[in-house]
């Protein structure tokens, strides 16, 4: 970025006209759909469905437009393509690389004086999308290699029944200490396959995340990082990996964090509780662990002009339980309570740090229609949508959501089977959302007054 462009952003940030929103979420939480739907809501010319977003409801919103990114090296978020996918009834493909989007919003001020002074006000939003797998690398910054390898090895040991994991462990144990380029490459590839297999099994805590989604680092020696048996804490392979770990943290994780997370003003943490419930007790506890670890990586605190310029802090956090459209509405409350209970610790911390928090059950793109069926015990609310596996129309009651973290015993006797539907269009051939306007009001309402 050249100096004038930086100075411009500096000035805009001083006037609170440049806001960075961080959409945080593990892979599969629905970040891409959330960004696409959010941008669609802010840029579409049709009458938006946003009764809870003050600036739109009061008719003061003029419009939003996509702008070229300040950092031209970064890929642009493929908004139009993703939107087209949704309108054609498909989910956008999962994110492979980092991308950014800059949006300029114009609105009339609600203040009489400000409205007299200028015809319109404007604000710039900077939104970044990235593969959710990378996010899980952030806790590595506060870890030592010994801790990391023990933790990652334990995850492998827990998945020994998976063939790819067994293959990696066998290769690792065949010759513990030999270090040569060929062997490290082979072990890296095997570990990569093991990680992918574990991901298929619904395992969440997978590090290093870059190995799962290498993007531009594919084949780079930086990614040669895999865990060892913690019983052996000496030897050439151990010291090689120790260096690799350090290099990975310094050259991959730190820049990623510095560039996209250190400067956030507002944050959305998307959580797919339903997917984790489907995957079982281990997935749910891992999700909770991951979220707790993640919440420690960000700077939270009240907004101030000095902080905004030199040391940005996140002044508002929205915890969003995504995919709430896969539930009948009476279960939204349970979903909220479950998320709240999972995140009790970070929520308390953020309140202590004077950061505003909100918890919502939302759906970026509604994929099911609510209806009723007559059963023997009276009318029963149910959902209808097209299943993601085969596109067939399916009518079902998706089941209840527990209002607190379910114990392992509950998983043993109860199977959670929340469906996965394809996006659905409404009567105007547009996608509809659930509570996205409330999310916007919380995130931006105070800036668009």
């Amino acid at each position, binding site marked *: 970025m050249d100096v004038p462009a930086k100075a411009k952003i500096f000035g805009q940030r001083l006037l609170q006209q440049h806001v960075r929103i961080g959409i945080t979420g593990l892979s599969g939480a629905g970040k891409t759909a959330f960004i696409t739907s959010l941008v669609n809501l802010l840029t579409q010319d049709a009458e938006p469905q946003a*009764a809870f977003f003050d600036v739109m409801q009061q008719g003061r919103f003029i419009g939003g437009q996509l702008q070229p990114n300040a950092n031209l090296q970064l890929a642009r978020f493929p908004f139009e393509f993703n939107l087209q996918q949704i309108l054609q009834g498909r989910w956008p493909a999962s994110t492979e690389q980092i991308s950014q989007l800059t949006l300029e919003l114009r609105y009339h001020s609600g203040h009489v004086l400000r409205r007299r002074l200028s015809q319109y006000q404007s604000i710039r939003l900077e939104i970044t999308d990235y593969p959710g797998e990378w996010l899980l690398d952030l806790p590595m910054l506060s870890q030592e290699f010994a801790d990391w390898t023990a933790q990652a090895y334990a995850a492998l040991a827990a998945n020994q029944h998976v063939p790819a994991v067994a293959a990696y462990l066998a290769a690792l144990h065949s010759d513990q200490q030999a270090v040569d380029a060929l062997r490290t490459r082979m072990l890296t590839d095997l570990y990569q396959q093991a990680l992918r297999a574990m991901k298929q099994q619904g395992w969440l805590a997978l590090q290093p995340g870059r190995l799962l989604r290498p993007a531009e680092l594919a084949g780079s020696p930086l990614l040669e990082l895999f865990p060892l048996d913690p019983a052996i804490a000496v030897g050439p392979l151990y010291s090689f990996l120790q260096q690799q770990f350090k290099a990975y943290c310094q050259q991959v994780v730190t820049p990623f964090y510095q560039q996209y997370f250190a400067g956030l003003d507002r944050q959305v943490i998307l959580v797919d509780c339903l997917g984790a419930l489907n995957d079982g007790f281990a997935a749910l506890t891992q999700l909770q662990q991951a979220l707790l670890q993640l919440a420690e990586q960000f700077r939270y605190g009240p907004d101030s002009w000095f902080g905004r310029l030199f040391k940005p802090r996140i002044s508002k956090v929205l915890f969003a339980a995504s995919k709430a459209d896969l539930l009948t509405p009476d279960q939204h409350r349970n979903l909220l309570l479950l998320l709240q209970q999972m995140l009790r610790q970070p929520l308390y911390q953020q309140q202590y740090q004077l950061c505003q928090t909100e918890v919502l059950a939302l759906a970026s793109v509604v994929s099911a229609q609510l209806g009723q069926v007559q059963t023997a015990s009276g009318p029963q609310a149910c959902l209808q949508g097209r299943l993601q596996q085969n596109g067939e129309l399916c009518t079902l009651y998706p089941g209840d959501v527990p209002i607190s973290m379910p114990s392992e015993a509950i998983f043993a006797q109860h199977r959670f089977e929340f469906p996965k539907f394809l996006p659905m269009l409404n009567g105007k051939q547009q996608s509809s959302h659930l*509570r996205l306007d409330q999310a916007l009001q919380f995130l931006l309402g105070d800036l668009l007054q």
Partner: protein
Amino acid sequence: MTDVPTEPANGLRSAERFSEQQFVAMDSPVLSALTPAQQYTPDSFVSPPEATKPVAGQSTAVTTVGWVWWTAAGLAVLLAGVQWYQFVAESWLQNALQGAAATGLTLCGGGLLLRSLLKGWLQRRRAKQLDVLRAEAKQLQSSLQYGQAQSWLERAKALLTDEPAATTFNADPLLSDAEQLALFERLVLQSLDQRAQQLVRQAAGQTCLAVAVSPLALADLALVSWRSITLVNQIGEIYGVRLTLWQRAVLVKAFLQALFWAGSTELAIDLAGDALGAELSSKLSARAGQGVLAGLLVARLGYYAIGQFRPIRYSTPDSGSKLLITDLVQQLLKSRKTD
């Protein structure tokens, strides 16, 4: 997925599949344009059983003095009835024409009396419905429940049958009760509020001008009370509540009480604290100052009435009254310039 009905062993219902034929779609907001607007007459309205709670304090012990009064009133009505009957009977005896006239008078009078009683009863019932609605709204707003708001919304819509925004309002079945109410407030009540506030501003301005130019103190008093009563009536019409004269008087009384006991500090701030207002009103004559005061009083009453007529209580105190003093003074100054 199982076809077995729910087994609440751990309190959680399992997923359950149904056939496509069984599915009946809820009217979603998306399709709301296609479903015809439905209006309800007040007669078709049936309150749910829990809504008709006996109002506390209504059946308080009647004192002996109260009994005496009631007996006296009852006897007087009875005597008047007997007297009237005798008068009609005597009229018939004297002259058929006179008798016919007396009977006609009785029928007309009785009809009018019945009509006004019925009207009063209907209005009273509407006002009661409003009270119930307000109490329920308060409960719904603080709950995270789902599915209770539908009946509330239908009754609120029944109150606001003249309001197109209300009759076309369709609840989003995906939202919770508190959200439904918030949506109703945003999409329906806000426009009503704006209209009512416009009325209040008009009434305040008119009162202010009239008091400023009228020379008689007694005329001022009559003017202010007349304008207050009509204002309350107009605001009530906007919110679908028609008050009897008696109820209007009760409202004004409640307002005065609120002014004395609770609102006095606010009023003092309004009157004295507004630096701009004080500075401006010092430039005006004493009469004009009185006009501003009277206008302010009417405006306060108007805002109070809005607060009382809204089916949902104000979630945030309005800031509209702050600008009012300057507004009124400016209106006065403008009218003086044009004179």
